[in-house]
């Protein structure tokens, strides 16, 4: 029907865009992971809402404002914030194909994450000892539910870091490993963003 003439295809034209195809897959993986992170936001929003509703209900348990130590929380915050930064530096190492820099910064990130988690567990043990256990009151249940979920995410991120170390060790900085690193970096920065909300809404608002 059509009598418009098409220009002849270039030599080597196959109808497929090979490089681009692979590339899109990679982008889709990261985008899919982004959707997961957003759904995780909804999980955290539900737990935040629960905490907000329960926050005044201490019954006979000690009050949060009597037990929170803000300098301790500031230390935890510093560890997590720095780890977000060091993960960014690790990504720059990955972009430059600089394996040494990548390993170094990922190692520091892992150590900071571990430090954060240890501080959080110590805080939980201390609070439980002085009577503010998860089962003592609604407000403390909300507190442990929220902070504990965040802590579990950090723990999951650290397990994932170990897995990535293994993949990097086995295959080097491949396209696939880059995608994995990209997803984990999104996850790690996301945890830092959740922590901003946690220290603002839970610790600072309780002490103000």
């Amino acid at each position, binding site marked *: 029907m059509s009598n418009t003439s098409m220009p002849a295809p270039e030599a080597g034209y196959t109808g497929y865009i090979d490089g681009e195809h692979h590339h899109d897959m990679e982008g889709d993986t990261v985008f899919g992971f982004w959707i997961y992170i957003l759904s995780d936001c909804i999980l955290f929003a539900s737990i935040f*809402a629960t905490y907000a509703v329960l926050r005044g209900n201490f019954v006979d348990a000690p009050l949060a404002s009597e037990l929170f130590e803000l300098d301790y929380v500031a230390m935890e915050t510093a560890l997590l*914030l720095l780890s977000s*930064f060091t993960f960014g530096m690790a990504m*720059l190492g990955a972009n430059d194909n600089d394996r040494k820099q990548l390993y170094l910064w990922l190692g520091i990130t892992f150590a900071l994450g571990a430090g954060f988690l240890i501080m959080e567990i110590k805080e939980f043990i201390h609070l439980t000892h002085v009577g503010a256990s998860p089962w003592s009151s609604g407000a403390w249940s909300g507190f442990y539910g929220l902070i504990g979920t965040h802590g579990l995410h950090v723990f999951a991120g650290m397990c994932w870091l170990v897995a990535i170390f293994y993949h990097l060790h086995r295959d080097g900085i491949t396209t696939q490993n880059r995608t994995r690193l990209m997803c984990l970096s999104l996850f790690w920065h996301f945890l830092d963003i959740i922590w901003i909300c946690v*220290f*603002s809404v839970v610790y600072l608002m309780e002490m103000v």
Partner: protein
Amino acid sequence: MGHSTTEHGASHGSVGEYIVGLLLSIGLTALPFFMVMSGDFDRTLTIITIFVCAVAQVLVQLVFFLHMNNASEQWWNIITAIFVVVLVAILIVGSIWVMQNMNHNMLMGH
């Protein structure tokens, strides 16, 4: 490979960008902590500062650490994020509102 610009949510930063992000985050964390810990600021002012700093820091981290910007490849990232922000707002504000109403009716009786 053109690797750095076309992935969804995956454009890469620079050292400078990360350092600026880190410094801004430290400032936006230190200010509310300082105000609460010193305890000699007006309560309302402190609460407003806490919320403004928190929102500002979330935005700082989205821009400097997650590299969100208004590039067209990021359109889907941003549209989905806005959708979730709306959902989160409904969830949190709605929960507090409903529960407060219920508490009010339970305690006061008629």
